[in-house]
């Protein structure tokens, strides 16, 4: 059986906002689901305009 543990978006161990949903089976990490983009600064778009 796996348990999902959410980490973030705000967490002292993270360098920037990221949401990680870690799926664990006992002590073992068996999967991860990530959500990015909280800090997207749109530099590509800014440079284009």
């Amino acid at each position, binding site marked *: 059986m796996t348990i999902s543990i959410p980490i973030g978006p705000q967490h002292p161990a993270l360098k920037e906002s990221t949401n990680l949903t870690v799926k664990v089976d006992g002590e073992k990490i068996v999967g991860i689901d990530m*959500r*990015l*983009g909280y800090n*997207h600064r*749109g530099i*590509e*778009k*800014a440079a*284009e*305009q």
Partner: protein
Amino acid sequence: MSLESEIEEKLREEFKEKILEVKIPGEHRIFVSVPSPQVKELVNYLRQNFGLTHITTISAIDIGDDIEVLYHFFCRGVTIRLRTLVPKTEPVIDTITPIILGAILYEREIQDLLGLKVKDHPDPRRLVLPEDWPEGVYPLRRDYQVGFKGG
């Protein structure tokens, strides 16, 4: 013979007119341009014959009528750049994730930001954009205008 020349020779032999351009712009670098339906086949060929496993990134840009997609690979000391154009009227490209697993997030990113539909992607959910972002709005397309938010 250097690896990049070997790749160039083999690609010309194997793909012939299906390849638009192959050139070696410098030492340890190779540039390949192909039509978008050939991308998957070519990546698979490089994987099978040259042990290509590492993708550095995929970058894409809206250049008017087409979306230019650049795949950046690194294979045994050689940087491989693969360029393809996908028409905006039919913005669909085949996934390469089953061949090079590292492409999974890059493909989701370009799908989000440029609306380039990645066909048969194993996990086509949103990556960068928020859940409440409207469907069919692609922020890195030229026709998307950034609103002035003050400050």
